[in-house]
């Protein structure tokens, strides 16, 4: 029995590791006066988690406090963001958040939080989406793809991750701009999406830049949904260059609960922007196939408002 007790104790310790969240005792004058918790709303090892890990050590140095990473995973991020809106707005708990997720999820249905309840501190990376076919495909260029789609209305499939997601929006926007009829096939994540794509089970994908970077030998990028060319694929044109005015990306950043005092927001913003501008952090982002960003509180707020309007229009015709 002694041994069993030991196992139980070990179990408790492991639980403790995941849960370490110090209670807020007194109101302090200097923020932060104790460790802060960075809530990751997606699975460990995923993009959001890797981003958080890159930030953990330098952010800890910038804040002068330990940064703990905690997970609340579920509902494509919704579970964690719902949790965020219910935590104490004292700046000691903040969460990674994604655009367009926090715009599209509440737009689709009641998910327990509203877009405006996710108060952005800043955005640190952008993952642009690009239209791609397999390297072995007979389709070489965007005009060829559009022509192919026009000749076969409804039978050309584009894979993406999730419905009511940025991938889905990209296809809707593409259909609208080109006057084509595409079948959007959602997958439960970008890993199964890329697997099905590499196996040739969908005709094309709107793929995230980091996934396309990983499989760069096997894919042909027809166009990035970006303002400028993606540095990792300098030869791949943007969709805009080719006459399709569309930008679609997943932006990742850090957010706090509603009613967080402005001085605390500013303090966090200052520290996070400092980290975002560190050369080694920027390099790491680039290496993983992302675009490093340092978009601050006000700018991100305005960006969310702008994107919300665009998505409202795109989803107006979608059946809920």
């Amino acid at each position, binding site marked *: 029995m002694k041994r069993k007790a030991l196992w139980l104790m070990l179990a408790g310790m492991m639980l403790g590791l995941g849960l370490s969240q110090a209670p807020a005792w007194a109101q302090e004058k200097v923020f932060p006066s104790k460790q802060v918790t960075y809530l990751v709303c997606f699975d460990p090892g995923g993009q959001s988690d890797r981003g958080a890990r890159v930030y953990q050590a330098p952010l800890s140095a910038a804040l002068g406090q330990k940064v703990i990473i905690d997970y609340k995973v579920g509902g494509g991020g919704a579970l964690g963001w719902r949790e965020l809106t219910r935590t104490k707005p004292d700046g000691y708990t903040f969460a990674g958040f994604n655009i367009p997720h926090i715009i599209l999820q509440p737009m689709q249905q009641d998910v327990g939080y509203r877009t405006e309840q996710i108060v952005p501190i800043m955005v640190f990376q952008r993952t642009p989406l690009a239209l791609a076919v397999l390297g072995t495909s007979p389709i070489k260029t965007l005009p060829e793809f559009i022509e192919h789609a026009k000749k076969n209305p409804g039978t050309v499939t584009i894979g993406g991750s999730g419905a*009511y997601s940025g991938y889905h929006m990209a296809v809707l926007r593409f259909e609208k701009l080109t006057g084509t009829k595409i079948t959007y096939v959602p997958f439960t994540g970008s890993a199964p999406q890329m697997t099905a794509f590499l196996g040739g089970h969908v005709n094309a994908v709107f793929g995230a830049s980091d996934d396309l970077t990983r499989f760069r030998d096997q894919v042909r990028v027809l166009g990035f949904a970006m303002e400028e060319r993606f540095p990792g694929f300098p030869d791949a044109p943007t969709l805009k260059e080719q006459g399709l005015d569309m930008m679609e990306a997943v932006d990742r950043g850090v957010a706090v609960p509603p009613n967080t005092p402005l001085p605390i927001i500013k303090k966090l913003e200052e520290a996070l922007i400092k980290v975002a501008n560190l050369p080694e952090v920027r390099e790491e982002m680039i290496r*993983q196939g992302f675009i490093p960003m340092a978009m601050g509180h006000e700018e991100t707020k305005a960006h969310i408002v702008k994107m919300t309007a665009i998505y409202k229009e795109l989803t107006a015709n979608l059946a809920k």
Partner: protein
Amino acid sequence: MLFSWEYLFAGFAASVSPENLLWALVGCFIGTLVGVLPGIGPSSGIAILLPLTTMLPPTPAIIMLAAIYYGAMYGGSTTAIVVNIPGEASSVPTAIDGYEMAKQGRAGAALAISAISSFVAGTLGLVGLTLFAPALAGFALAFGPPEYFALMFMGLSLVVSLSGRALLKGLIGACLGLLVSLVGQNPLTGASRLTFGSLELMSGINFISLIIGLFALGEVFLNLEQQVQLLVDKKKIQWMPTWADLRQCWGAILRSTGVGFFMGLLPGCAPAVTTFVAYDLERRISKTPERFGKGAIEGVAAPEGANNATSSAGFVPLFAFGLPTGPALAVLLGGLMMYGLQPGPLLFKTNPDLVWAVIASMYVGNVICLVLNLPLVGMWARIAVIPFYILGPLIIIFSVVGAYSIRFLMFDVWMALVFGVVGYLMRKLKWPMAPMVLASVLAQMLETSLQQSLLISQGSLAIFFTRPIAAAFVVLALASIVRGFWVQIKERRGEALADGDD
């Protein structure tokens, strides 16, 4: 990804360096531990230790994370056998016969055979990984949504044979299992269903809550009612398997290795599915299928072999393409990426030392796991002789902690308790539980692949018959359903007056 003896030997040399050996040992130990503890699976185990990657060089870190993954496959069977708590979905079939064996005083034999089966299958799976990885890597890509649906459909057809003679009860149970899995958001579209406006239900009913409730809590409730004093109902206790047991299991181990390995190459076919298939296969080809569910030792060897072969096979698509076959390997992939390593054909060119050291370390690790687990058998097996008034509350505590540790939500604990009552009722009414569990394991893949297939085919079901792999599985499934019903009718006729109890 080219195999060469030179690389493999260099890998072995690296894997037995003190540092790498130490971390393999740490990984195996932690893996066994997270396997034993219900609720904490290999993916959370790896995730908890992911921060270590910032302190260790890549090779020992990846060796350790991989060891957690396959180590968990060893530990997973322990609680399933001894106290009927399958901590992971993959141990559910193990619990069916393993726990029966424990009640007959043969927990030691069941635990030892599961360690041996795990070792043999894990190692054979590694041989497959080492020698045939390039040839097999394409296998994962051949499976698109229609193939997955057909495969899952075949899995679902096992309900017919898993129900035994209680076919109607089994089918209803399966429907219930599907229904439970539908609660929450549609995995593809995010639309809520069956949530009745509850935000808690929106994130779905976790599978681990379901099995902890059905198996562990349901059993405790029934034992309480029957005022059981001791789980073991025989005076004679057998600590170790006999040679006869080993001989009996040999075929099962090898067959389950095959099943586990090939299904393990497919993303999404996590051990949960392969263990059921391996269990069912043994039951079907057995000359004495009636022993299954009543403590057949092959019924323990097969799923335990299958899940280890699956875990070995999962490294093929991971290393060859960077495609994870399940959540645990996805976390491991994240670990690789944190080191700036991009799994894929390039990894074998750019970092052969690391890849082959990791592969070689898995051979070593399997030996470590065996050595670690066999001596513990006696200790675990003794749990069965703890008086129930002590053991019962302990099982409840373990179950509650296990359910809570899935997502750190009290909701999962309440759900486990609800399914505890369901499990109690099913036991009282002699309803087989395996069909319900199997259906809920398969439900998500079944649903998403059906939805995707029909999108691709524009709503035509012909897609499942025009693609050869899909067609083969569908035909196999239909055949197994027809056969199941036929056997059922024949037996009914033959023994119309025999005991109609289950």
